[in-house]
C-alpha cells in the first residue's frame, strides 16, 4: 500500500519536478542521496591531495598559480556539496567522521599516486574530464540543492580540464623525454579514469533505485561510453598512443568498442588496497587534527566578541 505522501513524491519525480529539502521523501531516498552526495564531497576534498603534491614543484610560476587555483576550486566544490548534503539532516562532523573511519567512500581514482608533473596534466584532462561527464548528467538530478550545486560546479570545472590538456599538450609537443612522460601519465591514468564511472550496471548495487528516483540520470556504462568516445580524438591531437590497443570505431553502434577493465583492480582499490588509500586518510586526519586550534580560535573569538557586545549593552 502506498501512502499519499509517497504517491505525491513519485508524482513529482515522474513530472521532472525537483525535490526540495523541506519536502517529504522516503527514508531510503534520503539515505541514498546522503551516501552519494557525501561521497562526491569527500572526493573533492581528498582529490586535493594528489595534485597538491605538485604545487611546490610546478615547472613555472604560471603553472603553479593555475594549479593553486584549481586545488582551491576543489575545496570550494567540497564545501558546496557538504552544504547540499547538510540540507538532508546530516551534520558536517558526522560526514567527516564517516570519511575518516572508512564508513563513507570517495572516488577510487585519488588512491593513485602522482609520480611526475605529467600526472597533474593527465588528472586535469582525464579525471576532471570524466568528472564533468558525470556531473553534467547530474545537473538533472531530482534533488534540488544537489542539481543546483552541480550547475555551479560544472561552470567552474571547465577550466580544470582545459588547463590539464594544455599542460599535456606542452609536454607532448616537447622533448622526447617530455613526450614519454606524457605518454606514461596517460597510460597510468586512462584506466582508473574509466573506473571512475563505477562498476558495470549489472554489478552496481545502488544503480537501479537511483535511476528510478532520478538521483542518477544515466547509467555507469552509458556515461563511461561517452567519455571513451570523446577521449579518442583528444589523444590523437596530442600525438600520443591510445592506451587501449583494442579501441575501434563501431559503425553500427555509433560508438567505440574497447577492452574491458581490470575489475579486480577496481574492487581492490575500492576495498582499501590501492597505492595511497591509507596515506590519503592519514593525511586527512592529521590535517583535521592540526587544524583544531584554528577552529578553537574562531569559537574563542566569537565568544569574546559576544561578551564585549553584552558588556556594551549593559
Amino acid at each position, binding site marked *: 500500500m502506498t501512502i499519499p505522501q509517497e504517491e505525491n513524491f513519485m508524482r513529482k519525480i515522474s513530472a521532472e519536478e525537483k525535490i*526540495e529539502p523541506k519536502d517529504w521523501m522516503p527514508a531510503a531516498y534520503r539515505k541514498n542521496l546522503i551516501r552519494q552526495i557525501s561521497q562526491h564531497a569527500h572526493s573533492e576534498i581528498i582529490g586535493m591531495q594528489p595534485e597538491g603534491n605538485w604545487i611546490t614543484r610546478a615547472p613555472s610560476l604560471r603553472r603553479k598559480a593555475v594549479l593553486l587555483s584549481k586545488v582551491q576550486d576543489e575545496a570550494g566544490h567540497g564545501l558546496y556539496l557538504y552544504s547540499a548534503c547538510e540540507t538532508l539532516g546530516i551534520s558536517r562532523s558526522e560526514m567527516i567522521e564517516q570519511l575518516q573511519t572508512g564508513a563513507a567512500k570517495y572516488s577510487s581514482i585519488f588512491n593513485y599516486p602522482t609520480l611526475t608533473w605529467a600526472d597533474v596534466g593527465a588528472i586535469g584532462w582525464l579525471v576532471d574530464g570524466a568528472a564533468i561527464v558525470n556531473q553534467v548528467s547530474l545537473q538533472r538530478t531530482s534533488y*534540488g540543492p544537489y542539481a543546483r550545486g552541480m550547475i555551479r560546479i560544472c561552470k567552474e570545472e571547465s*577550466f580544470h580540464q*582545459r588547463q590539464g590538456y*594544455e599542460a599535456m*599538450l606542452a609536454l607532448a609537443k616537447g622533448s622526447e623525454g617530455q613526450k614519454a612522460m606524457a605518454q606514461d601519465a596517460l597510460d597510468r591514468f586512462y584506466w582508473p579514469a574509466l573506473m571512475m564511472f563505477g562498476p558495470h550496471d549489472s554489478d552496481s548495487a545502488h544503480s537501479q533505485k537511483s535511476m528510478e528516483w532520478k538521483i542518477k540520470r544515466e547509467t555507469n556504462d552509458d556515461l563511461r561510453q561517452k567519455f571513451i568516445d570523446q577521449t579518442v580524438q583528444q589523444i590523437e*591531437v596530442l600525438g600520443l598512443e591510445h592506451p587501449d590497443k583494442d579501441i575501434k570505431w563501431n559503425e553500427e553502434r555509433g560508438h567505440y568498442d574497447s577492452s574491458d577493465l581490470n575489475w579486480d583492480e577496481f574492487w581492490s582499490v575500492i576495498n582499501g588496497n590501492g597505492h595511497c588509500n591509507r596515506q590519503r586518510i592519514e593525511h586527512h586526519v592529521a590535517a583535521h587534527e592540526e587544524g583544531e586550534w584554528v577552529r578553537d580560535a574562531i569559537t574563542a573569538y566569537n565568544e569574546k566578541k559576544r561578551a564585549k557586545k553584552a558588556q556594551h549593552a549593559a
Partner: protein
Amino acid sequence: MTTSTEKLELFEVFVRSKRGLDHKHIGSLHAEDHEQALEYARDCYTRRSEGVSIWVVKSNDICASQEDDADCFYDPSDDKPYRHATYYVLPDPVNNM
C-alpha cells in the same frame, strides 16, 4: 511621532518561481513577525502564481558587502584570468571539450 509601520520590522522576500530554481529576491515589506511576513509576501508578491515557495528574512539579519568597496573587495581575483576556461587556447578539433 512614530507611525504604525515604523513599529513593524522590515523583511526581505525571496520567491522560488519554479521547483528546482533558486529563490530570488523580489522585494521587501513590513510585518509584525515571520509568519505575518510570509502571508503578506504571498498577498503582495505572488498574486499571479509567481512562485511555489517563499522565504522571508529580517532585513536586519542580512549582512551585505558594500558596493562602493567593490574594487578592493574583489580585486584579489582580477589578476587571475587563468581561472576562466577561455584563457586556455587549444587546437580547434578539441577546443569544445
